[in-house]
């Protein structure tokens, strides 16, 4: 049997990964095969070198950074959750205040567009617009929806861009 045939078992034996019977067979072979002894000790030394290097600690700051990032993200998530909870509570409060019994007919909806501001057009001493010059469109005004309930004390405004 060539040393190559023992390679896999030697590699497992180095890390103590062989069952007892196979392990003792490897040891018997090692006692008589100088080639496998070299292979085995080479694997053992390289493994020990790797384990020694692996045991060296990483800089503590690298752990602190990860911990800080995780805790910050969890805190943000929690704040968001509280914001949602507060919004839901406000909505629930609004629904409680809503005069449900007096609402059977739908409230009238009034749409109101505020008047557009006058657009400034420079004259430059001549009438009309210079070729190639496009006048800027007036800035869009937000849409204002006013919901009037039949309770004069409650008026709801909805403003949308």
């Amino acid at each position, binding site marked *: 049997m060539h040393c190559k045939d023992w390679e896999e078992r030697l590699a497992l034996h180095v890390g103590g990964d062989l069952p007892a019977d196979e392990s003792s067979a490897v040891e018997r072979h090692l006692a008589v095969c100088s080639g496998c002894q070299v292979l085995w000790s080479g694997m053992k030394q390289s493994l020990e070198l790797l384990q020694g290097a692996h045991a060296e600690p990483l800089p503590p700051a*690298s752990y602190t950074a990860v911990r800080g990032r995780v805790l910050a993200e969890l805190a943000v998530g929690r704040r968001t959750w509280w914001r949602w909870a507060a919004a839901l509570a406000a909505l629930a409060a609004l629904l409680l205040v809503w005069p449900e019994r007096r609402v059977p007919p739908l409230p009238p909806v009034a749409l109101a567009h505020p008047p557009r501001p006058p657009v400034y057009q420079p004259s430059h001493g001549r009438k009309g617009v210079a070729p190639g010059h496009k006048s800027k469109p007036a800035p869009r005004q937000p849409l204002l929806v006013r919901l009037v309930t039949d309770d004069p004390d409650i008026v709801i405004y909805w403003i949308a861009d």
Partner: protein
Amino acid sequence: MALAILAMAEAAESPQAQLGLIEAAKAGDLAAFETLMRQHERSVLVTAYRLLGSLPDAQDVSQEVFLKLYRNLGKVDASGNLAGWLYRVTANACHDVRRRKRPATPMEFAEDLRAVGPDPQQVSTEAERRRVLEMSLRMLPEKERAALVLRDLEGLSTEEVARALGSSEATVRSQISKARVKVRGFVEGYFRSR
């Protein structure tokens, strides 16, 4: 005093204490969750570092793993094996990172080669050992690397490695033996060429 601190640390890592921390964290106690993180951050970050070969990537993976832990505290609680769960999630997250961005940037370990001790001889030896470790791991195929890191560097049993990597024990044994043979060849070649 030192012994008392050691005993306290061990008590804090007992299964009951850990279960208590998980329960507290589930109830929203962030300090309890931070303690859990402190107990397991070394294994998560170092494993990710060995698997990816880049500290920033390993930190990103660690962050992802601990956020996942927070969201899955209930499942971990039921499985009763937090360390095993963390190794599995870390290995999976590293696999995803490697799939997304390959190949690994070479020589991003320059900062690790800096002097860390007063004895120049010791410094060069330590730096060289780190370099050999990183280069050996880098030349291994992903699965062999993962098996070697978990079995030989992190000290998990073959069964635990198989569970973490989602494969059979026979496959893990085969991967480990191949990896050990390759590492030996690399290490001997490295020192012979110097």
